């Protein structure tokens, strides 16, 4: 049964428990690590964590296996001429990288150096700070983030409406009467841009209280199974939201007083909605007009309501407009900043304010060199990378540092990205595995995992439904010869003569030999922030030291604060600024867009998150790939019959941009007819053997990075609602065998 804790240990050191948090997904669940002799005996959910309240999932609880994975890279690796890797010392790797970067900088300038951050950086404050710091110090415009694959529109809307990329309202599900959930599947994903502990249970609380939850999704997802489900055509979200708003304003259901009180520029709403036709929206969304009307009326009539939307609506061609309309729906129904509505959280380190002070937030302060995309939060979109590499001229991208990311699989048009990466003068990957991306790198610099480094949930603390504070030291010693990402970046920075920091005077301090650590900087931010101890002036306040000495998270409040809008706004007038030309342009673009399906590519493909997967991560862990783990294409029975697909058939999917072969079809009426769902992040190569053995195909071989296919205001990739055709490979396979 359960392995006794004292099993076969001769040492006298008893097992100890340490309360930490999970760094796998945006749930950031509290965990209890049982440690003995620097070995992780087990991970369990932390019952006392104010937000996750004893919940954790199989991904986080299996993370010890990532730390201890035999496929993990434990020493710096250098690629040799024949493509294989040899282990080298940190000194050698870093010195050589420094030399090569200096050579590139000498010829092409600092602006030719690129940085790419993956989602894992969201739980790695050192890497987060040094990444933005390096980009700032290099004055490079080649700062890329995986966020531009799935969420750039959020940053943009937040900047324009609330004055900061990082100030994002979250749904107050714990107190709402009506939750509209668009394109999100929290029962599986556990939430994004909403750090709601026990997300599923919190949603079930809505209906248990007599409220309603309506899930909008082309697929009857695991979340939709639990609540009311309204199927929508992929990328129909902007249409649905526009139509709902149209109904609300036409029928006088809007909270005009709230608009007057909380916003400026609300006149734009009437302008935007004037040309919207319910019939057209209904066609585009695949939802009958009457149902849209009823949904709008019910949402507006609810004592409190929140509309929450995530991937399904933020990775399409109108992601920014969708997010804007989502916020407008919440605001126009009086739900902004009120209980049960659309609220601002209470981070224990006010990252929003810090980034604002550092002038690190913004939109369209500059445009990208080749595609002319507006910058978003100082980053350029991932879709542009191949063209930035292959297009000559000043500012051409010549070297790239990829931190905790696997863009060779996760980026749109992944094949093109791989080809472009081959043309770089230098590719550096900070990764714990030899992945599709890192195997192309000149150097693989292995970092610590979140079990092996100091951390606090820098990103998700800003979206927490139950405000809390937690800061933990390393749980385990670093394995092998791995180092913190932040250290690696700082060492590279040293060798090219910069300090990876963007605050005024940082470079000067660097010349004096002072390099304030990310932990120091964050501690200053904490101590001088709203929850801080003001260096002793407020003894009850928080500091890094105090939190590190505290076992577990400290609860700051029972729920989301309300009535704090003016305090939180970074806009000049302290109101929500609704009127921006970009939204007018986008509405015009939406209304002119065609939503008819191309007859050569009659089906619409969406990506799917699965319970034991996290994008491209965690696919090398036995517990997460055991038990019939096969990449399966979900297809409605009607479409299966029409296109000759039988259950279990291998299927070829073709888009205008590529073709893949998916191992199996799964026929299920969970799909809306006409749409297909495929788990993304599969089709691995490299040194993570189990991940490779699971097989599957890369979703992003079907997607495009064309600039005109992206969400134009944000440059976010369009990776949802891909037009495809399919055929069964049953007979092909049979003939081959």
């Amino acid at each position, binding site marked *: *049964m*359960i392995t006794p804790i004292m099993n076969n240990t001769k040492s006298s050191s008893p097992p100890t428990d340490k309360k930490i948090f999970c760094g796998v997904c945006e749930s950031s669940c509290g965990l209890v690590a049982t440690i003995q002799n620097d070995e992780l005996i087990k991970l369990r959910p932390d019952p006392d964590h104010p937000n996750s309240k004893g*919940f954790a999932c199989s991904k986080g609880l*299996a993370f010890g296996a990532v730390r201890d994975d035999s496929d993990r890279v434990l020493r710096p690796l250098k690629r040799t001429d024949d493509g294989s890797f040899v282990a080298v010392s940190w000194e050698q790797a870093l010195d050589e990288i420094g030399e090569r970067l200096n050579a590139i900088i000498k010829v092409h300038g600092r602006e030719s150096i690129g940085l790419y951050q993956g989602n894992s950086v969201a739980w790695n404050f050192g890497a987060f700070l040094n990444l933005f710091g390096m980009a700032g110090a290099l004055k490079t415009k080649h700062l890329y983030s995986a966020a531009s694959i799935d969420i750039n529109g959020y940053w943009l809307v937040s900047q324009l409406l609330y004055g900061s990329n990082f100030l994002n309202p979250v749904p107050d599900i714990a107190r709402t009467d009506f939750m509209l959930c668009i394109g999100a599947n929290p*029962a599986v994903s556990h939430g994004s841009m909403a750090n709601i502990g026990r997300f599923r249970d919190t949603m079930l609380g809505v209906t248990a209280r007599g409220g309603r939850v309506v899930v909008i999704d082309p697929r009857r997802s695991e979340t939709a199974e639990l609540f009311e489900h309204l199927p929508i055509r992929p990328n129909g979200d902007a249409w649905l939201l526009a139509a709902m708003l149209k109904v609300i304003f036409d029928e006088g259901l809007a909270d005009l007083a709230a608009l007057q009180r909380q916003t400026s520029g609300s006149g734009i709403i009437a302008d935007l909605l004037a040309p919207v036709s319910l019939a057209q929206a209904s066609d585009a969304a695949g939802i009958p007009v009457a149902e849209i009307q009823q949904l709008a009326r019910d949402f507006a009539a609810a004592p409190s309501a929140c509309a929450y939307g995530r991937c399904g609506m933020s990775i399409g061609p109108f992601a920014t407009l969708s997010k804007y309309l989502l916020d407008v729906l919440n605001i126009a129904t009086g739900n902004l900043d009120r209980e049960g509505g659309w609220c601002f959280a209470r981070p224990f380190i006010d990252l929003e304010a810090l980034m604002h002070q550092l002038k690190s937030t913004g939109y369209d302060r500059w445009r990208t060199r080749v595609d002319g995309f507006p910058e978003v939060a100082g980053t350029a979109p991932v879709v542009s990378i191949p063209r930035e590499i292959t297009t000559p001229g000043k500012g051409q991208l010549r070297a790239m540092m990829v931190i905790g990311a696997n863009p060779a699989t996760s980026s749109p048009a992944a094949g093109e990205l791989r080809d472009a990466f081959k043309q770089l003068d230098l590719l550096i990957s900070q990764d714990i595995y030899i992945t599709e991306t890192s195997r192309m790198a000149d150097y693989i610099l292995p970092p610590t995992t979140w079990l092996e480094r100091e951390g606090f949930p820098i990103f998700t603390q800003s979206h927490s439904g139950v405000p809390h504070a937690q800061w933990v030291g390393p749980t385990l010693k670093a394995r092998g010869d791995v180092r913190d990402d932040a250290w690696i970046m700082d060492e590279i920075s040293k060798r090219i003569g910069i300090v990876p920091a963007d605050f005024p005077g940082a470079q000067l301090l660097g010349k004096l030999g002072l390099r304030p650590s990310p932990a120091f900087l964050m501690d200053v931010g904490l101590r001088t922030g709203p929850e801080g101890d003001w260096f002793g002036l407020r003894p009850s306040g928080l500091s890094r030291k105090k939190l590190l000495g505290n076992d577990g998270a400290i609860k700051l409040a029972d729920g989301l604060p309300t009535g704090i809008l003016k305090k939180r706004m970074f806009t000049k007038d302290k109101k929500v600024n609704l009127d921006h030309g970009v939204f007018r342009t986008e509405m015009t673009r939406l209304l002119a867009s065609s939503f008819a399906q191309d007859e050569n590519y009659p089906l619409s493909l969406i990506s799917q998150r699965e319970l034991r997967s996290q994008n491209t991560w965690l696919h090398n862990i036995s517990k997460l790939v055991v038990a019939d783990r096969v990449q399966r294409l979900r297809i409605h029975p009607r479409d299966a019959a029409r296109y000759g697909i039988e259950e279990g058939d291998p299927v070829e999917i073709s888009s205008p941009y590529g073709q893949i072969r998916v191992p199996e079809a799964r026929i299920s009426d969970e799909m809306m007819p006409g749409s297909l769902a495929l788990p993304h992040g599969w089709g691995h190569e490299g040194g993570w053997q189990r991940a490779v053995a699971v097989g599957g195909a890369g979703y992003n071989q079907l997607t495009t990075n064309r600039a005109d296919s992206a969400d134009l205001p944000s440059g976010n990739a369009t990776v949802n609602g891909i037009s495809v055709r399919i055929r069964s490979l049953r007979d092909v396979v049979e003939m081959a065998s």
Partner: protein
Amino acid sequence: MSYVITAPCVADYSCVEVCPVDCISPMPDDSGFDAATQLYINPVLCVDCDACREACPVNAIFAEDQLPEKWLDYIGINAAHFQSHTQTVAEVRHDK
């Protein structure tokens, strides 16, 4: 809450393979496995992660709050299996 194994269980133990907290019993190498008529989830140890429900090939596993009415008795049946297994109860690491 907890997850609950119900009548269709055939003891295929895919759930055991994916369970992150080893709360499903009997495991294949436990003495009671060969004679087991179904497997059971220890409600004290279950962390509601949903992995077993997804992995179950015969749809025998439900979150307690989604349990079909005709199988409500399986809450008690699952719990009862562990009442003599004090060593697992001693493993309690979260409140219920």
